[in-house]
């Protein structure tokens, strides 16, 4: 393929493959905890980091990473301390993030405003060679942390009280998940963009959960949908000469629609089987005459 002969396209594809892998793995926990919009908020906070980077002349990826991680910790502390005022405080942080991002970028002047647009909706050409190192390292961190703590995060998402009786530190796990979501936002900001990165966490899970019966399978199929959306969406944006964020998200939504259509006969086929098992005495154990 000719597009692979371009260095910027190779870098963009690596970045897209990383976000296609990582985002659904985090998204499955966010959806389970009914925090589907958390990624949106983290994107707003990361935007403030990008604005600060423009203003002080540092690299955007590590600065956005620091801002998003700090925001994640603050958000979790607020959520842990106050359930009612927490919602309001979250809104204030999110609005503050996007306002700060735009304000700092304007103050930075020059071409920063144009560059901001690329961070909002993604861009094929903005993934610098130096970014790839950061994105790979952050992705590896997310994968290792998930491999070690994923089962405890799962129990916490299932029921925090039960998790505590298993010795699991639920506040720490909740904070860890939010920080991982913040990292994921930063991984995706180059290709999908900060305004749409949450979609690549959530839409693949929304698609896969229509076909699955278990958490692990949902995550695995979510990754397949995420990779297809990210890589094919990026390639489409090259040919359409459009920002990659919208094409990736549209492709993910298209796959969601396909899964929804496939799910109809699958559910119909399963329903009689479940009813038959439920009708057997002992909730499913076959009883045979002696």
């Amino acid at each position, binding site marked *: 393929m000719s597009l692979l002969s371009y260095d910027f396209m190779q870098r963009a594809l690596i970045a897209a493959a990383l976000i296609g892998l990582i985002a659904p793995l985090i998204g499955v926990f966010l959806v389970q905890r009914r925090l589907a919009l958390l990624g949106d908020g983290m994107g707003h906070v990361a935007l403030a980091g990008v604005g600060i980077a423009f203003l002080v002349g540092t690299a955007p990826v590590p600065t956005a990473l620091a801002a998003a991680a700090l925001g994640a910790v603050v958000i979790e502390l607020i959520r842990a301390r106050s359930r009612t005022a927490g919602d309001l405080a979250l809104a204030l942080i999110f609005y503050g993030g996007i306002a700060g991002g735009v304000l700092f970028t304007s103050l930075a002047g020059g071409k920063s405003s144009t560059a901001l647009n690329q961070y909002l909706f993604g861009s094929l050409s903005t993934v610098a060679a130096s970014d790839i190192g950061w994105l790979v390292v952050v992705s590896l961190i997310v994968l290792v942390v998930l491999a070690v703590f994923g089962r405890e995060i*799962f129990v916490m998402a299932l029921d925090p*009280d039960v998790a505590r009786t298993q*010795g699991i530190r639920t506040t720490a796990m909740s904070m860890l998940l939010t920080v991982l979501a913040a990292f994921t936002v930063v991984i995706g900001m180059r290709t999908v963009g900060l305004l749409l990165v949450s979609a690549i966490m959530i839409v693949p899970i929304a698609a896969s959960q229509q076909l699955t019966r*278990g958490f692990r399978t*949902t995550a695995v199929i979510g990754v397949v949908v995420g990779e297809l959306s990210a890589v094919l969406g990026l390639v489409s944006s090259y040919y359409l000469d459009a920002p990659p964020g919208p094409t990736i998200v549209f492709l993910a939504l298209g796959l969601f629609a396909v899964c929804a259509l496939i799910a109809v006969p699958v559910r119909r086929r399963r329903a009689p089987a479940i009813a038959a098992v439920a009708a057997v005495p*002992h*909730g499913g154990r076959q009883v045979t005459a002696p």
Partner: protein
Amino acid sequence: MSRACVTFDGECVVDEVTLAVAPGEFVAVLGENGSGKTTLMQALLGLVPLSHGAVSIHGTPVAQFRDWDRIGYVPQRLLSAGAVPMSVHEVVESARWSPRTRWRLRRKEDRAATSAALHEVGLWDRRDDRLDTLSGGQQRRVLIARALATGADTLILDEPTAGIDAESQTRLATTLRRLRDGGRTILLVTHELGPVADLTTRAIVLARGEHGSVRYDGPPRQEELAHHHAWHHSEDIAPPPAPTLLEG
């Protein structure tokens, strides 16, 4: 648990409860709705803060307690239905995950414990089904299986029979008998003893009032339970004896 009090919004829900549970005991905690049974269990597990008093589990203050794999807990409410499907097997198997298993892969004994627990509650054939396709009673059996899969020596079950049919209650009683005979310590919150009456070695009756939460603490004699169950409806009956402190 020593002179434990739990207060919500200034209202005393658990009042001056002092009790100790000996290893191998089968304790039924009885009382009407709102008498503080669930809150007492949550206080025992350190899930709700005490306004005063102290709780120890297996001799260790609850805040410092780390041997959580010795505790199996069945909460009163069903697991919240999240937006992501979870199979029955995944939910039961999750009982095996804790900080102690953080650095290891799933082992043969994890699979064996999960499988045994699912067979015990009669849900082996539903193991691959989505949790939210099960009835309320079946979901409660999943929670019981989850507690059994821990392999814990102490089980705290908060109304495990709520919403499950008579046959399943009898099956649960058989399971609990086997666990008790195997030396497990069991605390069971229930509205009525029902099928576990002959398993129970001790009954604690709770009620709200001015004389502490514990109305009766002793052998599960029907006439005593009937008397103390009715006591809080009648103010002209003498208050109950002071709560018993049993050394564990």
